[in-house]
């Protein structure tokens, strides 16, 4: 029983100790803690009536990680304890426990030493010095908040006191003595007594205590007992960066988690991938669980980042298998804030930012453009035109569509608690104008979290979150012919307006899309999302070892889209109006039974059983009309007065029923085992309802072993390994049922005529779950009392029975069929290093580095060697066949196209002639080396000469976060980087070449081949034989980047300057510097949104902005 003895500091009054975890019924089960374990470990939730002190101590140990040491005989005099605290600080809890006890305690490191109250006579024996003075002061903690109950002791004596509710203390001490100030969760400080001056001290949070208890699926676990791989992001990690959404808060901060801003639009899209994409057709978005509710309709960015206490990202199967069919893409668990202090704490934040476009294409001047165009087609611009252009005129289309955007973000929250209840309320308002003209986003959100104790055994809690977001023209993720794409290809020599003041609708010589300025100023699209999350929780401690949690919740979205597509945007005049209302509702009902008991002091067993039911449905109605007398004057408000009216409605519904079991077992606090099993029944797979998802994991806390501890190197050393199966059911309902859709045509008349076409002629009745098997080995290391932490994981994820949209040949009707074929593998490494290199009174420096590298590989496609990309083609005028392919042996996101070899020079005239080409024409690799379609000896470059030319996946990504505090000045420097990913830059290609959708060249760096200028990049302008292929290596650009994502400097105004509320002001910059060789608006964006197959395509996407933000934060 002496196995923890070496932990004991060499204190003279400590004798042989004993841990108390024997045959003791634990009062608090893990699931109970889940309801409140949102905070740091110094908080305790505990209810007991006439409980033995050992029992109470055991519970405190469980929750805080602190250990009690005492002589057993001491407890013979112990009184039973009555206590009811919720999320209370440890000192206060200890104060209650020791209130009537004949002994006291002292905290040394992580040990609470219990000792007898010194007899009064001893005090009398002490000499009272004659130069005693009254010393007073104030102790504060994080963000300058007063620390109530902090211990202030005179070093080397037993004299001490604690601070009051406002953090103030008074103590009698001699000059020259040293005060030791300590508080749980903070580094202790020693301050010499220099006389009568007040001692005001701000304590620094102790690194080792941050996030000791973590939320896992259907419960909580001590971080030290974890066997799975997870990454945590806490609010303090991003508090110095003004973040408008949750994904910005996660970006670059967790190993194995890739967050990509696919659109820079206000309220725009982000993509999250945890350890790479597994699925080609079933979706790769992680599951989002907020306070126990698995979201089904809302996006992670619907959540207010300021409401978040912390985020856990479950990565390996040991952690995610408990979510079974929804866990294959990883799970993000969000815990929102709860009130913690008796005194309400109010936090007000205001962020105001100015954003600007971060990149501008270098395009030809109007006159240079006109001259180059004349080289290709003489006479396009007359001498008169040229003379005028030399005087001025023309248009900088990029300048005409971009502007400075303004971000305003106001947040307020208040949280507090009483003896039986706690509360947290928050409100937020965002108003953002985008860097593209005529785009904006506004959002209003409120949250309420309330918990109350009905009886000593029953807790009830309700969380409600309601938000309304309204985007205006912010949905364009990038596509052919939108304003961004057109702005780089419309002729710089052209004007916005005709001489008569009307818009110049068509570029007479260049781009064939419509005028970008006319498009962007005349679009009208509202995207309104009303969303709500309501969760109710009941926690019922049936026995001390058995707890039932019932969680019922819904998340719902009411979406409205109102759109007027002006005649300036749509290819079909006279423009159209559209309106859609959609509902989405996700319901969950979970019943969690948790058993927790420690047997023979060394067997710590937790068993969890869950029955759960989820229901998801969506439906909606939309209507549109084109033209008519009321259009566009009445916008979409009077669709009945338009022509060509069309209505449609949609519906989908799916159910999931699940049974879950989990065993967590810890032997001697060293050897850890976790096993889970989940059975999911889904309505989406009519012939294969049930899927089964097992996992096992083991861990070994080496740092608990003597032979490791004797090394005196590791403060934490754990190895762990896991294996498990998760699933993916991310397909739309009814996908297995062949269906017919009804469309409308006219056959020349004005009355609509219905026609019925095959929508899903090849529904696969035997469709089933996609299954991902993950194996993970990891190690967690802590050094220097955990001031330096390292966590590394190697993983192999194999996904089989891929849900795959398999292409159907055109002669079979074309399109695709969703079916289960093939396998994909992801192998990789996650690495997270964090440390506190400097931690002194005036300076602290926290640094965290994460590194992720994985290799994705398609192992099989169930027969065929490849399938075509999901975007069939970019557009006939640009790329007629898909530029991406999923190929066995290659990663998802592989570009498949022509290998550009340069330009045929005059010395190669003979070789060029074999292809019917001339010097000055583009040269592509002839892979098949020379037969035409009929087998003749006729060298030709055709589809069979395409090869793998690149990949959109990075080799590795990393993020580096530095937080430096110097006295009252705080600096945050956050860098993120991606290495080795390619982007097919179609915007650039369209500007630099003449293809279907762009007849002229606008890019400034093009210097066409001539016999004199032997360019090896740019073909001759006058050649009639030159063939441009946009799906070629020529337009594939290295999009590696290192980006200064955030730099902020904040100043906390000391209370010596402003009394009362601590105020922090800061200025920060986002995306200030990007080092990249990518020649486009933004190396982060993707015009294909969430797609993994067509990952890196730059085609008119809304670029990210460079933003300067001014923030004001008041906290009292």
């Amino acid at each position, binding site marked *: 029983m002496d196995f923890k003895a070496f932990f004991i500091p060499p204190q003279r009054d400590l004798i042989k100790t004993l841990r108390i975890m024997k045959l003791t019924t634990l009062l608090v089960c893990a699931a109970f803690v889940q309801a409140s374990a949102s905070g740091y470990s110094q908080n305790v939730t505990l209810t007991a009536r006439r409980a033995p002190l050992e029992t109470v101590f055991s519970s405190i140990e469980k929750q805080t990680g602190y250990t009690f040491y005492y002589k057993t005989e001491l407890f013979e005099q112990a009184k039973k304890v009555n206590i009811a605290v919720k999320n209370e600080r440890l000192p206060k809890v200890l104060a209650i426990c020791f209130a009537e006890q004949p002994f006291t305690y002292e905290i040394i490191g992580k040990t609470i030493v219990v000792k007898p109250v010194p007899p009064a006579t001893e005090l009398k024996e002490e000499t009272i010095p004659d130069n005693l003075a009254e010393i007073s002061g104030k102790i504060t903690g994080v963000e300058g908040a007063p620390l109530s109950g902090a211990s202030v002791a005179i070093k080397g004596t037993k004299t001490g006191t604690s601070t009051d509710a406002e953090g103030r203390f008074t103590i009698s001490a001699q000059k020259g003595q040293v005060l030791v100030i300590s508080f749980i969760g903070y580094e202790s400080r020693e301050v010499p007594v220099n006389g009568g001056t007040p001692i005001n001290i701000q304590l620094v949070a102790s690194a080792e205590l941050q996030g000791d208890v973590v939320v896992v699926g259907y419960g909580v676990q001590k971080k030290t007992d974890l066997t799975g791989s997870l990454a945590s992001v806490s609010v303090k990690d991003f508090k110095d960066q003004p973040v408008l959404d949750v994904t910005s808060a996660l970006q670059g901060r967790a190993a194995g988690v890739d967050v990509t801003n696919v659109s820079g639009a206000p309220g725009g899209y982000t993509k999250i991938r945890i350890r790479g994409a597994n699925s080609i057709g079933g979706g790769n978005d992680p599951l989002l669980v907020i306070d126990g509710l698995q979201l089904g309709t809302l996006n992670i960015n619907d959540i207010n980042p300021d409401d978040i206490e912390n985020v856990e990202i479950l990565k390996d199967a040991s952690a995610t298998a408990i979510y079974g069919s929804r866990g294959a893409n990883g799970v993000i668990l969000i815990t929102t804030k709860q009130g913690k202090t008796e005194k309400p704490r109010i936090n007000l934040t205001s962020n105001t930012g100015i954003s600007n476009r971060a990149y501008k294409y270098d395009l030809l001047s109007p006159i240079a453009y006109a001259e180059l165009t004349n080289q290709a087609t003489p006479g396009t611009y007359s001498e008169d035109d040229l003379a005028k252009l030399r005087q001025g005129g023309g248009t900088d289309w990029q300048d005409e569509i971009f502007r400075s955007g303004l971000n305003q973000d106001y947040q307020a929250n208040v949280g507090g608690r009483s003896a039986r209840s706690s509360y947290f309320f928050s409100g937020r308002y965002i108003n953002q104008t985008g860097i593209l003209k005529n785009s904006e986003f506004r959002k209003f959100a409120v949250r309420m979290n309330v918990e109350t104790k009905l009886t000593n055994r029953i807790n009830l809690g309700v969380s409600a979150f309601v938000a309304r977001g309204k985007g205006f023209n912010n949905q364009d993720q990038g596509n052919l012919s939108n304003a961004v794409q057109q702005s780089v290809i419309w002729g710089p020599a052209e004007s916005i307006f005709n001489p008569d003041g009307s818009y110049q609708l068509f570029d007479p010589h260049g781009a064939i899309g419509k005028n970008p300025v006319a498009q962007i100023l005349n679009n009208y699209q509202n995207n309104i999302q009303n969303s709500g999350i309501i969760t109710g929780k009941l926690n019922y401690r049936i026995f001390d070892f058995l707890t039932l949690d019932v969680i019922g919740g819904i998340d719902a979205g009411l979406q409205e889209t109102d759109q007027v597509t002006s005649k300036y945007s749509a290819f079909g005049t006279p423009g159209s109006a559209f309106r859609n209302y959609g509902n989405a509702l996700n319901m969950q009902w979970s019943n969690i039974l948790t058993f927790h008991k420690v047997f023979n002091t060394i067997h710590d067993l937790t068993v969890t059983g869950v029955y759960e039911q989820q229901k998801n449905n969506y439906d909606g109605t939309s209507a549109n009309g084109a033209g008519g007398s009321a259009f566009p004057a009445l916008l979409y408000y009077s669709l009945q007065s338009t022509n060509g009216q069309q209505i449609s409605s949609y519906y989908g519904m799916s159910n999931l029923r699940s049974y879950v079991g989990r065993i967590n077992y810890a032997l001697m606090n060293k050897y850890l085992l976790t096993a889970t099993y989940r059975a999911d029944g889904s309505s989406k797979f009519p012939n294969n309802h049930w899927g089964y998802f097992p996992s096992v994991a083991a861990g070994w806390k080496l740092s608990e072993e003597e032979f490791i501890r004797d090394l005196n190197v590791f403060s934490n050393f754990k190895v762990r390994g896991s294996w498990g199966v998760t699933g993916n059911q991310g397909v739309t309902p009814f996908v297995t049922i062949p269906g017919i859709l009804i469309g409308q045509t006219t056959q020349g008349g004005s009355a609509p005529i219905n026609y019925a076409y095959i929508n899903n002629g090849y529904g696969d009745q035997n469709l089933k779950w996609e299954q991902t098997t993950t194996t993970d080995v990891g190690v967690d290391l802590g050094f220097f009392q955990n001031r330096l932490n390292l966590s590394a994981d190697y993983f192999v994820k194999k996904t089989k029975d891929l849900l795959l949209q398999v292409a159907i040949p055109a002669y079979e009707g074309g399109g695709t069929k969703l079916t289960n074929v093939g396998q994909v593998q992801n192998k990789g490494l996650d690495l997270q290093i964090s440390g506190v290199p400097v931690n002194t009174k005036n300076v602290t420096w926290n640094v965290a580095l994460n590194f992720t590298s994985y290799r994705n590989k398609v192992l099989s496609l169930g027969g065929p060697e490849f399938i075509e990309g999901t975007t069939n083609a970019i557009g006939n005028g640009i790329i007629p066949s898909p530029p991406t392919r999923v190929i066995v042996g290659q990663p998802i996101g592989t570009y498949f196209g022509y290998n550009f070899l340069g330009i045929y020079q005059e010395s190669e005239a003979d070789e060029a002639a074999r292809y019917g080409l001339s010097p000055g024409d583009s040269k592509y690799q002839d892979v098949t080396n020379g037969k035409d379609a009929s087998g003749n000896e006729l060298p030709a470059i055709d589809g069979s000469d395409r090869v793998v030319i690149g990949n959109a996946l990075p080799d590795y990504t990393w993020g580096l976060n530095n937080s430096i505090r110097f006295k009252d000045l705080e600096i945050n420097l956050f860098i993120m980087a991606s290495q080795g990913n390619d982007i097919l830059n179609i915007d650039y290609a369209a500007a630099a070449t003449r293809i*279907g959708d762009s007849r002229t060249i606008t890019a400034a760096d093009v210097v066409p081949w001539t016999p004199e200028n032997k360019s090896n990049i740019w073909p001759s302008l006058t050649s009639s034989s030159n063939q441009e292929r946009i799906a070629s290596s020529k337009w594939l650009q290295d999009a590696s980047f290192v980006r200064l994502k955030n730099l902020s400097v904040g100043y906390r105004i000391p209370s010596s300057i402003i009394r009362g509320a601590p105020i922090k002001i800061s200025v920060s910059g986002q995306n200030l510097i990007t080092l990249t060789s990518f020649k486009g608006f933004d190396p982060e964006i993707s015009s294909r949104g969430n797609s993994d197959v067509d990952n890196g395509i730059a085609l008119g996407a809304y670029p990210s902005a460079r933003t300067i933000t001014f923030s004001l934060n008041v906290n009292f």
Partner: protein
Amino acid sequence: MAMKTFNDFNMNDMKKYCYLAVLIFLILGCKRDALKEDPRNVLSPDVLFGTTEGLEYATTNIITQFSEMYANSQCVGIMEMGDDLTAHPASNKQDFREIDRFAVSDANARIQGVWTEMYQCIQASNLLLSKYQLSPASQDVKDRCVGTAHFFRALAYSNLTRSWGKVPLVDSFSTNINYNTPKAEVAEVYKLIVSDLQKAEELLPETPNTNEYPGLKPFKGTARAFLAQVYLTMAGWPLNQTDHYALSAAKAKEVIDNAGSYGYEILPEITDLWTWANNYTNKEIVLGLYYNKTVASNGNMAAPLPSQPEDEGGWFDYWAELSFFNRFPEGKRKDATFQTMIQIDATTHDSVPWHDSKTLARHPFFKKYQDDVDRHDWWGSRTQQIMRYAEVLLNYAEAKAMSDGPDASAYDAVNTIRRRAGDPDLVSGLSAVAFRDSVIAERGWEFAGGEPPSRFYDLIRTETLEQETAKRDPTDLPLQHQPTHADYWLPVPITDVSLNPALK
């Protein structure tokens, strides 16, 4: 140490068990059939065909799919191998240029569009043919719908085999996808085309619905007119089944004899053929595809811009070959066919002749594919004339001459067209072959510019592509090589070759 054990039951504990029991009851009492799908919004083919309207909807779909192919300039583009059309030598017209120069890549987007849309039309027809029995519609309605399906499937295969030769032959609807379908021999394809048209002839209504636009929906006459065209094609390359001339002549004659009841006539003035005023009333149309641009996705993009000069905001997708233009007989027909004055200044409306150095292309353009009401929009509502009665007459003249010698009726047929064009009658006493050659030339002038009877199809079925291409003006876009028979057919699009390498 006092602790609770299982022996310590009291009333409170019993109460707890009651609560627990209630909860367990709730858990188990949930809906049994929760995992059953209820696809309220999915209309299955069987349900569709089980309704009276369903069969009509499916029939309309077939016409809609067929119309897709002709709704943009690809329908002219794939004819650019003919000697009447050529493409922009530079700019962005690579797809058109490839076809014109006999350097067609299998990644060519225009050929892919035609291929895909024809097969979608075939799939729509196959679906109807496999399910129509479910329909409660009357026999008359069923016959018309089934006849329409056969009719358009024949047209789609006819388009495919004339451009690609051997193509995969899919003649029934199945949910099993065949990735190994071989190319069928051309004769096999024609067997299906002929049998489809014969069934259409048998099942379709006797006469057209006079309340509808001319040629909007097929009837017996339409099927006969196309049978004549198909037989004539079969008589030439590659099948060279010369006995089909007689079949063709007989079918064409049936149409000509019934022209009155079918509602067909040759418009007296050639300029009336392509005017907006006649867009919905043109009685020369045997089969027409009708569009309406004011309804989303219902417009016709082949009309306003592709054949307009860029000087006027057009797209330059194709223009006239100089040699062909120069050989084109002067007169009303030439004036109606070509745009020869190019407007070079939108403000002053200054126009110059096509060869003026101020123009960008220095070529005449095809007026017949422009839009006389709406010149500046992407979309128009112009009707696509898939077959004109003029073609029936010319099919007859050629078939009659080749089967039976050029008699008066054959002369009469061709001269009707020549007279309308303002040309003198054909010299009499020509040999059958000489007469045929005159008709082929006549067809060239009449259908120039990529009209569906197509100069290109005439040149390959008569195996004269090489000879006519040799007349190309040296200043026109140079060919990659002089064509041979190997250039008669297009490569199968890369997307399907990728999925089924047997199609390469």
